[in-house]
């Protein structure tokens, strides 16, 4: 039942924050802090108690109804919601969900802390929107019923729309509407795909249900599977953002308030990756296999295009936004490589990117609060004015260009090693992307912090609160850089479970690399882990949790 708390606590805290906010704004902030830390504490508790379950070697079991396919679900809640349409209120959590929830609540807390001073206008409603988004996010990561997933996927749009539209900066209305339409259209296409899947499954087995575990493994013609996969891919590619569908991100991030940008960059765009991992690939493994080359091309373009565009920006926040496009290109690479290394890399990248980009956004937000501009042309030489801010900015710039010793590098290395086993050119171009990352990171540092201080800025260096936040994030990134094992073990069962789900499809076999003269050894190097070829998927004997 704990899973329900993760959604309820922020959902309940939201109106409370609003009501309290009407009388005294400070109360709203503290409710928001409580609304995000409480579930974080519970989650940490659950993570520790369930650590043994996560550690155990993977065995195709899991609680929940018999139909629950191979997976490492450690807890689940299931109740019928709209019986006549086969929709159930089905929440389940496994290693991946725990990590994503940790991210959601941590960044929610950071978002609230980051806008402690920044937001002065109707503070109550602001924190209502933040908590509502956090509740929506928790719902997305927990739900295992496709309709419930879609419900939370769309429900989050409204608060984020208001966050950008009301508290944003100059072009906020344009950015808000663009974000709203982009996500909504792609969401609707996914809805059509979900419904089509349910109908096909219903026609085949007579059971009309939206329960993901039962929809898994629906047999259908390859072409239909491809189209449905495209429906899902379109929605997640917009959210990710993948290359051609990314144009909403720079606008939304630049115009959103700091808290909005942190939530957007930190967690919202992770839903794209999470959706692909959890739903898209397991549901249509063969279609994903056929679509792999195109996806890799898009990813690589995304990486390089994002980096070059970042280099070209004069608005600092827009630069950081484009870096997200570039980093998420790696995630797309990893998802479509679909071997254990790449997947672990992807999960790690989601966490590290959230931390590094979140920090950069808080930094830029803080800077904007101080000098009321984001245009790097008017900055320059800020290191002299605020050395501590300069140092922290340098650290996070290094994180974003993937300096070894920090989490981002480990994630990107794992992804690229995984991708190498699938296609050499993609891995190499991905690595080249790292060079471009260096270009924009250092360019940002030069334009904003180094060089001669010509504009006569003088403002206070980082406050204690900011130092605390950045310190925590720096510690997290360094820890992930040198000892990412806790995260890897937490996600291990999920990754193996995902591989298990697609074991029967063509996705599992490594693509025979086309390089001539490859010794026979290549074929022997089967997918890194020797997952037992458990062909039968539904074998669950786990009693109802």
């Amino acid at each position, binding site marked *: 039942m704990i899973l329900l708390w993760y959604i309820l606590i922020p959902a309940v805290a939201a109106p409370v924050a609003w009501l309290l906010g009407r009388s005294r704004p400070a109360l709203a902030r503290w409710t928001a802090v409580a609304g995000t830390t409480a579930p974080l504490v519970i989650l940490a508790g659950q993570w520790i108690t369930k650590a043994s379950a996560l550690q155990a070697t993977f065995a195709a079991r899991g609680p929940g109804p018999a139909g629950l396919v191979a997976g490492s679900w450690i807890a689940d809640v299931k109740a019928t*919601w*709209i*019986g*006549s*349409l086969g929709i159930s209120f089905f929440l389940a959590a496994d290693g991946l969900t725990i990590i994503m929830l940790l991210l959601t609540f941590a960044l929610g807390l950071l978002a609230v802390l980051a806008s402690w001073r920044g937001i002065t*206008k109707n503070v109550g409603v602001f924190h209502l929107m933040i908590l509502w988004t956090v509740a929506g996010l928790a719902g997305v990561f927990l739900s295992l019923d496709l*309709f419930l997933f879609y*419900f*939370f996927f*769309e*429900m989050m*749009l*409204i608060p984020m*729309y*208001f966050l950008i*539209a*009301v508290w944003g900066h100059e072009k*906020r*209305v344009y950015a*808000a*509407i663009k974000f*709203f*339409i982009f996500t*909504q*259209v792609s969401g*609707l*296409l996914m*809805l*059509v795909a979900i*419904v*089509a899947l*349910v*109908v096909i499954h219903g026609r085949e087995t007579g059971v009309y249900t939206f329960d993901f575990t039962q929809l898994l493994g629906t047999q259908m013609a390859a072409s239909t599977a491809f189209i449905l996969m495209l429906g899902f891919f379109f929605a997640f590619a917009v959210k990710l953002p993948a290359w051609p569908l990314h144009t909403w991100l720079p606008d939304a991030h630049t115009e959103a308030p700091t808290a909005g940008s942190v939530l957007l960059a930190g967690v919202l765009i992770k839903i794209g990756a999470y959706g692909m991992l959890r739903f898209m690939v397991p549901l249509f493994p063969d279609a994903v296999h056929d679509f792999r080359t195109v996806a890799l091309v898009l990813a690589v373009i995304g990486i390089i295009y994002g980096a070059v565009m970042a280099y070209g920006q004069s608005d600092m926040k827009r630069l950081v936004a484009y870096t997200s496009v570039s980093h998420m290109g790696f995630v797309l690479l990893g998802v479509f490589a679909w071997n254990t290394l790449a997947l672990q890399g992807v999960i790690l990248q989601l966490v590290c990117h959230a931390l590094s980009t979140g920090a950069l956004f808080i930094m830029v937000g803080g800077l904007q609060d101080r000098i009321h501009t984001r245009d790097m042309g008017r900055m320059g030489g800020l290191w002299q004015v605020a050395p501590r801010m300069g140092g922290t900015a340098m650290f996070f710039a290094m994180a974003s260009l993937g300096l070894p010793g920090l989490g981002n590098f480990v994630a990107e290395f794992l992804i690229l090693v995984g991708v190498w086993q699938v296609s050499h050119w993609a891995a190499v171009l991905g690595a080249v992307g790292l060079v471009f990352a260096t270009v924009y990171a250092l360019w940002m540092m030069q334009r904003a912090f180094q060089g001669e201080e010509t504009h006569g800025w003088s403002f206070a260096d980082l406050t204690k609160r900011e130092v605390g936040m950045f310190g925590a994030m720096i510690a997290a990134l360094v820890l992930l850089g040198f000892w990412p094992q806790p995260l890897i073990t937490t996600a291990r069962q999920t990754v193996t479970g995902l591989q298990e789900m697609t074991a029967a499809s063509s996705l599992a076999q490594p693509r025979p690399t086309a390089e001539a003269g490859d010794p026979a050894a290549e074929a022997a190097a089967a997918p890194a882990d020797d997952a037992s070829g458990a062909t039968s998927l539904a074998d669950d004997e786990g009693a109802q949790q």
Partner: protein
Amino acid sequence: MKAGDLLTISPLIALTLTPVVVMLFAAFRRSHGLALGLTLGGLAVTFGTLFVSASRTARVVTPLVTMDAYALFFIGLLTVATALVAVLSWSYLGRLRVRPEEYYVLLLTATLGGAALVAATHFASFFLGLEILSVSLYALIVYPVHRADAVEAAVKYLVLAGATSAFLVFGMALVYAEAGTMSAAGVAKLVAGGLGSQQVVVTVGIVMILVGVGFKLAVVPFHMWTPDVYEGAPAPVTAYVATVSKGAVFALLLRFLLPVSSDQSSTLFLALAAVAVASMVAGNLLALRQDNVKRILAYSSIAHLGYLLVAFLASGERAGVAAGFYLVAYFATTLAAFGVITVLSTGDRDADQLSDYRGLGARRPVLAAVFAVALFSLAGMPLTMGFIGKFVIVTAGAGSALWALVIVLVLTSAIGLYYYTRLIVVMYVRRPEELELAGAGPAARVAAAGGAAGVVVLAALTAFLLVFGVYPSPLLRLVEHAVSTLPWP
């Protein structure tokens, strides 16, 4: 017609007596409160009689009318909607410079027309129901006689309604001439039997009937009147036109032309599909950069009828449920939206300019919230009934593989997002201080006292939208029960 039948058609009787009673009382003592009280009382009695009629087994009463669960459900829906409109109109009429009593009488006769339509299984009751509804609406639209745009709207509505009724009559005559039957079952058999080439006359007849229906539903070729009438007519009447008038006619269409959805290659199906697509596209596009709020809602209602047609064209009981549920959602949302406009309107001008809504979030937070929820429901956003409605239609559409229609629905509803959010932006995003700077337009001053009843109704509607947006099962079961009585193939 046996005595027992009277009980079966008791709702119609109640609806007939109520306007007469209101009229008689108005003749003796003209008091606005009394008129409203009687109207609401009458409607309550009607609602009560629904259960009496439901308990009766004998369904068919004279070949004209069948009081089955389907009819009773929709009569209930119409009655509730009329009651809401009546309450909303109460404060509105107080501010108009005309006698309010006739308004309620006409409202009740219109509802009677709607009820007759819904229960009609014969051309006669179909035609008479439609005409009672239309005639009552003529007068309602031009109720504030001193307003030039009301007169203009009424003229347009009258002439077009007259013309299309003529088409309707001629169509019915043709069908009767060829088929010899005027009952819904007969027509359904004809449509199911495939309007082959040899029965061209019947097909032409049915198409001409569809002209009459199409006009009332305001689907594309016949949609031109909608924006002008919505803008010209007083806000509560517009609400009434948008909900009861369209809802009743759609319920009738579902009953009469049910089997059209079974054969997807027939001409009629293709024609209706084309109309649906055209309505969705034109409806959404026309509203894109519109500055008049009532015209935006007019165009959006055209689009929503397009969505409903998709549900109608999908086959199977699931589609019926989808259409039924979407109708209820559409009723609640439109009533809420127009309710807000009504409450904000003044005596001499309806609050349909964008400037009336600038910064409403700050000035009237409750009304702004109601309008926002209504707009989100129109856009089909989660937490609102609109979302479940749109979802159910997509499921029905996908169920009978109407992929093209579903994709058009999805893409056009995306266009819809733009102008719905545009309104919300106007309400919330302009910071109040910007308002003072820009010198707010003659924002409609709201008559404080009268608005209270309206706001209560709006709050109830919003709650309805949200509750059934999150947990729609009970309503879905009710609609399923209602729709099950239709002769599904």
